[in-house]
């Protein structure tokens, strides 16, 4: 029995426009006093009409272009009718038949993932279920009502949870590179809904399990875990029931991050009827070819292009440049440090710090890099000190990290901590002697196998807390071991 997961992703990206999608209210709603950013339009008062936000439409088209989509000549908005308290109009304005962007693709880890569409829509208000004066109530905050969203729909070209995660990360980076959204999954400005089923080859026959759409995925790891859980669940379910996909058995499942499981939310997704029809309040929107071409020409450098440029300009390895460029904020800080410099050794040095101690620290503490804490002068002074053998690379890594954390001058940290590289042969000889004393068989071992010297250099470095000049230590050791 061979199992191939078939995964498609719907990714919602909340745009960072200053105004909402269809009115001039502020679009900011995170940690804002409830219902303070509202007006007749986003509250859907009688007689209010939507007027589309041009910046948001252009952002949607930019996303489409970055995902190699074709841009629709004349796009139209449609009404998606459903009744819910946080949807004040009783319909959502979205795009169905003719979205701004269609038929794109992106390449990830050697896979091509086709993009069905990138369309523009509006967000709903936020329902808050909570007790109030001893009663369970639902409070609604309309600050988010009408905030612009772009929905990016992939074709079901993803076959593993890892690829799904990398796809989401890539989309996240692209919109960040474009500067159209902060795409923060934890803050809800990026949301993803995987749809998944399995292709099962068994006894020479092919089966497809019923489609499942997963909701409430609130993190990247969550997406990966939800998909893994669902692959396991669907394959077990198939073994038990043999049930296969048909036009009526698509279901919606929620994901519980705590328990790491999905659970049934809604049966028969196929029966929902949203009665879409063209939004009569908004005329069709057409951008001329020259406007689109101009937009295309002004797109910022995207991850792939930046990676190639880093390799060319800074001579960075494929691995290092790809890692740096997979995080837009890293590239911003990296470029801040590099400034106008094209010194390849300096670039390599900076990349090693970024991808070494700094990224380890950020990962561990769950932080994003803060370019405000990156001081280009500190990087160049530490680099010079290292080139001049005043400090070791190990020390350079440590002090630059400490400097990032505290804002202190890294060379002062090195001096205060006695971490400046020791090239004073007298001091070094003392340390070498101490190590040789601790390893009485060293001389004999060295006669048999000269490679042992590496171990001894390491011991001296350890003793010096990284401050010894390793080349000098090696020379002294070689002399003493002869």
């Amino acid at each position, binding site marked *: 029995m061979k199992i191939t997961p078939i995964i498609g992703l719907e990714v919602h990206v909340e745009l960072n426009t200053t105004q909402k999608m269809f009115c001039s209210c502020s679009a900011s709603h995170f940690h804002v006093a409830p219902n303070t950013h509202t007006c007749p339009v986003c509250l859907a*008062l*009688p*007689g*209010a009409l939507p*007027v589309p936000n041009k910046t948001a439409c252009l952002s949607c088209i930019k996303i489409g272009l970055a995902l190699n989509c074709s841009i629709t000549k004349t796009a139209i908005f449609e009404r998606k009718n459903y009744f819910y308290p946080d949807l*004040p109009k*009783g319909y959502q304005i979205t795009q169905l038949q003719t979205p701004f962007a269609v038929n794109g693709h992106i390449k990830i880890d050697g896979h091509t993932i086709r993009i069905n569409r990138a369309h523009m829509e509006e967000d709903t208000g936020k329902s808050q279920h909570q007790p109030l004066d001893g009663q369970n109530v639902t409070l609604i905050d309309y600050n988010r009502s009408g905030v612009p969203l772009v929905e990016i729909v992939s074709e079901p070209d993803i076959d593993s949870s890892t690829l799904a995660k990398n796809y989401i990360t890539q989309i996240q980076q692209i919109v960040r590179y474009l500067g159209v959204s902060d795409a923060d999954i934890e803050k809800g400005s990026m949301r993803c809904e995987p749809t998944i089923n399995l292709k099962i080859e068994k006894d020479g026959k092919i089966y497809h399990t019923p489609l499942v759409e997963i909701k409430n995925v609130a993190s990247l790891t969550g997406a990966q875990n939800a998909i893994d859980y669902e692959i396991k669940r669907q394959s077990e379910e198939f073994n038990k029931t043999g049930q296969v996909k048909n036009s009526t058995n698509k279901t919606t499942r929620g994901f519980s991050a705590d328990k790491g499981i999905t659970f049934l939310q809604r049966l028969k997704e196929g029966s929902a*009827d949203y*009665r879409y029809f063209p939004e*009569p309040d908004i005329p069709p929107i057409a951008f001329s070819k020259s406007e689109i071409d101009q937009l295309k020409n002004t797109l910022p450098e995207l991850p792939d292009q930046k990676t190639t440029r880093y390799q060319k300009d800074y001579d960075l390895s494929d691995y290092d440049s790809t890692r740096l460029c997979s995080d837009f904020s890293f590239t911003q800080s990296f470029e801040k440090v590099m400034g106008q410099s094209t010194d390849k050794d300096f670039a390599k040095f900076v990349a090693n710090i970024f991808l070494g101690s700094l990224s380890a620290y950020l990962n561990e503490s769950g932080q994003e890099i803060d370019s405000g804490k990156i001081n280009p002068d500190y990087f160049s002074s530490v680099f010079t000190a290292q080139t001049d053998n005043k400090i070791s690379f190990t020390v350079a890594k440590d002090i630059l990290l400490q400097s990032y954390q505290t804002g202190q001058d890294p060379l002062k940290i090195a001096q205060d901590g006695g971490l400046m590289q020791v090239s004073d042969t007298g001091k070094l000889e003392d340390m070498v002697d101490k190590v040789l004393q601790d390893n009485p068989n060293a001389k004999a071992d060295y006669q048999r196998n000269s490679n042992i010297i590496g171990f001894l250099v390491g011991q001296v470095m350890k003793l010096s807390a990284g401050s010894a000049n390793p080349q000098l230590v090696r020379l002294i050791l070689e002399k003493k071991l002869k």
Partner: protein
Amino acid sequence: MIDLASLTINQIRFSLLKKEFTATDLAKAYLARIKQIDPKIKAFITITETEALLQAQAIDDKITKGQKLGNLAGSCMAVKDIYLTKDIQTTAGSQLLKDYIPQYSSTIYQRLLNQDAIILGKTNTDTFAFGASTENSGFFTTKNPWNTAMVPGGSSGGSAAAQIGDLCTFALGTDTGGSIRQPASLCGVTGLKPTYGRNSRYGITAMASSFDAPGAFASNCQDLATVLSQTAGFDPFDATSSQIEVPNYANLLNKVSLKGLKIGLPKQYFEGVEPDVKARTEESIKIFEKQGAQIIPISLPNTNLGIDVYYVLVPCEISANMARYDGLRFGQSVKDSDNLVDLYFKTRGKFMEPELKRRILIGTYFLSSGYYDAYYLQASKVRTLIKQEFQQEFKKVDLMLAPVSPTTAWPIGQKVNDPLQMYLADVLTVPINVAGLPALSLPCGLDSKGLPVGLQLIGNYFTEDKLLSVGHQFQQITDFHLKKPKL
């Protein structure tokens, strides 16, 4: 004593400046007449005496201080109750919005206030403008001032009745399928449905968004021209409002010469109309002909599909537009609900009028999965055909002339239990909304029962200047528009 029957917008402004009377005198005169006459015809849902007197006082203060007066200074308006008026109850003719006080005003109303017009009150309408007689109002039926046993037409029946009853200087209405032209015709007043997009829809409860055309009633074309010059024009709050420049219509009233004017008579619009309606229309045609107009028979074979297209597309848009009236956030709510869904169901069940429910049901059905292509999509295609057909015929003629309504006013109650019959009252006006064209309704005499007959002049897109000019010249040589009922 001010003779309200003979006042026009320009005269009022002139009289104020010459201090013949004050704005307060005028507002008081209108309010007194409303108190005397309105109980008989019931044109108003709300009379805004306080606001009217405050606004009038403000205008009088301006005059005392020698400040510049707005173009409509002192003119008193009756506003259809689907226009949102800040701090003044706006019911849309429905129990659903009884006691609803809007937080903002519709663009058109605000533009008129900015020109120092005065609001006298909010007029009756079929619920959310769904109807042709005001009998679908959630409050009461307005009576035709010519014969109070008859309907005034609708949905803007309250405004038309107020206009002919001299209860206002001019009145605001909306025309989605004939709701200005038909009551204008049935009440014997002048009314204009502008091109779709000429007047902003912002702040007017939506009926069918791609059809709704706000407009006005007045005692003549000149006043209509003055009002339209102020209301028309791009509104940043309405994406469908046109950017096309607004001329000063009142300065263009003699722009078009009747001599040589090519008037098309679409033969389908003369089929099945009452003999008196036909006779009055033909007499008017003779008048135009006498002035040197060229009468050209034309054919609009898709006209009959207009009503079908209309009654598919309009309910579809209505079904979505009515979804915001959840009974929770504004308007009336039932007090005895068990939970949210129960509240929705009970509130909408109790306060929505039958016609409102009927149209939501029809629209929901047409948009449902499996029916969309057969109804909405098909109707949209026919809509395009109808537009093209008009464009084709406008290559031959300057404007078209037809009756407004196949009948004059009918007795209250006659069609109330036959919605299809009621829908057919709009058969000659609806195709113009389907195409989005402008059309003017002009009084052209009385039938044998003494009830007014109206004719409509249909123009090509954004030719309101031409329609008003032709209408004005017609009114210079006739007195149909001066005829008033005895009240």
